[in-house]
């Protein structure tokens, strides 16, 4: 499932995929795969992404339909 909210949050912080990847210590491909829904990050990585983008887990990773 695509993660559009993460992409929007990243754009709001004016960060490229590369910059976000470097900030949290992963590769750009991993960020891309998370945003496109091709990889499910671990909870630790989710928390790291939330910290880097100034958002909560609910904001970025909870299901939109609920």
């Amino acid at each position, binding site marked *: 499932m695509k993660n559009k909210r993460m992409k929007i949050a990243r754009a709001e912080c004016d960060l490229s995929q590369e910059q976000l990847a470097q900030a949290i*210590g992963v*590769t750009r491909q*991993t960020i891309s795969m998370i945003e496109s829904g091709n990889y499910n990050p671990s909870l630790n990585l989710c928390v790291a992404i939330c910290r880097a983008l100034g958002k909560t887990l609910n904001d970025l990773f909870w299901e939109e339909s609920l």
Partner: protein
Amino acid sequence: MKILKNNMDERQTAESNRVSAKSFWIAYAGLAAAIIAQLFVFRLDITHIAGELIVLLICCLYVVVGYYRRGIWDGFTKPGVKAYLGYSFVFVFLLCLPLPLSRYFRDGAPLLDCLGAFAKYFLILFPLAFAAIAVSGALTKKKQKKLAEQYADDEKAL
């Protein structure tokens, strides 16, 4: 000695582990098939395949001990008599098949003799396999209980 830093992130590590796991099982199955073929089809002496046999035994031991330590049986069955019977039957059936087949097709031995040989090996090996798998299952159940107690829901800590 400088220790090399692992530059893979969690996704690359997970994908690398998936590749390694699949290649292990390909190598394991290939090694087992090669040993069976060399022993029973090509009729080589056991000393010719001693190296491969040792490697296979080390792999078996590593897998068995690794699964036991984590209290894992398998994804399809629970440790119990039905599982032990099923696995023993399949394993011993496949192990006993190559030699009689080889005698029938290669040496032209009579079919009844080959079936008799198959039955003889099966009756000898089946109880041994069942016992080994049953012991493994009993140890796994004991370990699962120990792990459940170790990681029990400790309400007093709250």
